[in-house]
């Protein structure tokens, strides 16, 4: 028998260390993940640790410039028009910013993916209707839709999440459907049908695991997009309303003082860029790491660095 050739098994390692070493293999993605982790910690613990600091007004420190350590390290990034230190404000604003984007992405991903599975798997009329619905949402200019709806309804956090989620549903719907249409014709799905597997089993055991990595990659990218959209809405004054804060709102509030205190808008903007850039980098890494045919690139580089 000649067909006993078996690829050598990689060193037995736990899944966690495997992923970590693959992340380490792509330095940019590694630092992106680190940055996101810090942002996430800020979002979770920020308001609890620095909530008071962020709202304490200090009229003597109005528009205090950055890098002036005389006022204490909290003022390192300067202070806003009411003398509130910027660093704690950015830390606290992380919560709203990430929460709104996270909730919107989660809602649109779950709904879009569910509808996409139905639209891709069943050949019935329902699939037609779902796709038409997606087309209709797609044909709306999404920012305009958000603007109109948020003028009608009050711009609360829940409404913003809702509007952003609705505008992003078609992205997941289309991707999922396209993937399902392709995967359902694959031979192993046919094999499962020959064995008599139920539709539910085929969808959840055979199709979804194949589609999921793509969706995860898209969701990461989309998180960045939704964050920018929320920032734009807040910037236009129809997103999150003061006294709640987000990074986008902070940029908007600083606009009045552009000529005298550029740092008011600059730092929160930098936080937005940092987060979206990290998400983009991580998404690029995931595209490779989650694809069994491409993963060796990372594993190879990881091994060289060992």
């Amino acid at each position, binding site marked *: *028998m*000649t*067909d*006993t*050739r*078996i*690829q*050598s*098994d990689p060193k037995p390692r736990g899944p966690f260390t495997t992923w970590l070493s693959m992340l380490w293999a792509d330095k940019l993605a590694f630092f992106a993940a680190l940055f996101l982790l810090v942002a996430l910690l800020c979002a979770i613990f920020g308001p609890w640790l620095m909530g008071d600091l962020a709202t304490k007004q200090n009229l003597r420190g109005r528009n205090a410039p950055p890098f002036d350590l005389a006022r204490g390290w909290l003022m390192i990034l300067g202070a806003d028009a009411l003398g509130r230190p910027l660093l704690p404000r950015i830390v606290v604003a992380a919560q709203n910013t990430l929460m709104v984007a996270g909730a919107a992405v989660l809602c649109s991903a779950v709904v879009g993916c569910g509808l996409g599975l139905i639209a891709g798997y069943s050949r019935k009329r329902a699939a037609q209707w779902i796709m038409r619905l997606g087309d209709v949402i797609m044909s709306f200019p999404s920012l305009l839709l958000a603007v109109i709806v948020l003028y009608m309804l009050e711009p609360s956090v829940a409404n913003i999440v809702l509007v952003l989620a609705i505008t992003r549903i078609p992205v997941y719907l289309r991707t999922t459907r396209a993937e399902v249409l392709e995967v359902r014709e*694959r*031979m*192993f799905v*046919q*094999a*499962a*049908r*020959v*064995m*008599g*597997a*139920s539709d539910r*089993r085929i969808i959840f055991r*055979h199709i979804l*695991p*194949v589609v999921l990595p793509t969706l995860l990659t898209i969701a990461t990218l989309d998180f960045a997009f939704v964050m920018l959209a929320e920032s734009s809405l807040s910037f236009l004054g129809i997103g999150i309303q003061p006294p709640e804060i987000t990074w986008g709102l902070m940029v908007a509030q600083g606009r009045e003082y552009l000529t005298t205190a550029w740092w008011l808008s600059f730092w929160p903007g930098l936080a937005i860029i940092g987060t979206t850039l990290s998400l983009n980098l991580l998404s690029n890494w995931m595209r490779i790491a989650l694809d*069994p045919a491409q993963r*060796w*690139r990372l*594993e*190879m580089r990881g091994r060289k660095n060992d």
Partner: protein
Amino acid sequence: MTDHLLEVRDLSVEFHTAAGTVKAVQNVSWHLDRGETLAILGESGSGKSVSASAVMNLIDMPPGRITSGQILLNGQDMLVMTAEQRRQINGCKIAMIFQDPLAHLNPVYSVGWQIAEMVTTHGGTRDKAQARALDLLRRVGIPEPELAMRKYPHQFSGGQRQRLMIAMALACKPDILIADEPTTALDVTVQAQVLELLEELQRETGMGLLLITHDLGVVAEIADRVVVMNGGQIVETGNAAEVYRNPRHPYTRKLIDAAPGKGQMPVERDRTGQPLLRAERLTKSYGAFHALKGVDLTIMPGETVAVVGESGSGKSTLARAILRLDDPDGGRILYRGDDLMAMAPRQLFGLRRDLQMVFQDPTQSLNPRMTVFQLISEAWVIHPDILPKAQWKDRAADLLVKVGLRPEMAARYPHQFSGGQRQRIAIARALAMEPKLIVCDEAVSALDVSIQAQVIELLDGLRREFGLSYLFIAHDLPVVRDFADRVVVMKSGEIVEEGPVRQIFDAPRHPYTRALLSASLDPDPVVQAARRTARQLETA
């Protein structure tokens, strides 16, 4: 020492991959002279294409690296030439054609443009190039060449596309033509025509032809000399007929022995009693295309029925209809007298166990994210009445042993196995259902010849052990010769001939069956030469 037209001396190439450095070829030497045909024969992974890629400067470096050797064209070492010099040789002195012409022709440019580009790239004028392209299209037998100039690759058939590739390759009248598996994806009758065209053109131009193939039949048909490769090394080289008659290396011997169509044909069996499966007047259309035009088929218990036909014959549609993967438009399918078409889903679900399928490409038919144990035991998850959960592990181990694998392989994923092993896993999965009938849809077509023989042997053994019946779909007659009880030949959605295997092979009645038989290539150069002469007499 005289210079050969092309000589590869002591060539070694390695590739850097995830699994470390792979030595693709080691110390390979061969040569090619004017007017001669050299075949490099080998199975997948043997490195048979690597030296040709090195000749054409197609190896990406990195990850590839040429570690030793010379490639001499008329005595000059190409490996020390500049990139620009190499570029001018490509297409002009040495041209190449590939296995899958659809993928290898640029989809967005007309074929006339692509052939003419070969001439303009090497210094010809537009007008001259156009005229030459038209000439070539006529020469390789493309109908309506003026019209074809403006058509795109997707508008031609598989055989025509390979003719287009050949026309393109010959545009600059090269001294050498390298053909990498030029007929592998083609139907047997088309394969014979393309090989014939290559032979004719070689006689006309006197070029050297280097043919890379896995098929002994192709070697027998066309090659003067043969180089046999295995594991990146040349194991044997010599005159094609001589190598076939007296193989010196054990690997060559094994390869020759594995070639199908030389064993005993099974004797005809008794066909009275209730058939296991009966298909009556099955029809199926896809739009205006009639895939099945009223097909009848009977399979007796314990019998192997082979359905043979070329692409578009409807053989796969038939298999899918019988398993109800695609419902036929009309006709009946009776399983032990019960009509499958009229059955309620619940009844059909029970029957699924009895009818199983093994697909062509095991890489695609096994879910890449499931372990071998999960793949096999899925049968028992879906049909819990087959086996209590406590026995799953033991039975899975059992089945793995039955198909020639080891029990501890159950924890591995499909990508950790070779192609032949994967097909064994697929067979084990089908057996887990304890079926009565297994439909094998081109189940061995994607495998190397030596593996093909092993899998067929395995299927044959399992049939005797479990009393299975097979419906064996194939595009090639020799494969089914030693294995099938009955053969059904299909063409354009209809059965043109049906009968016991001896009758089909020894006394074919329908002209199409005869054409298929004469087009299929025999591994014996002497037999093949005789066939070729017979064929030429027929056409003359």
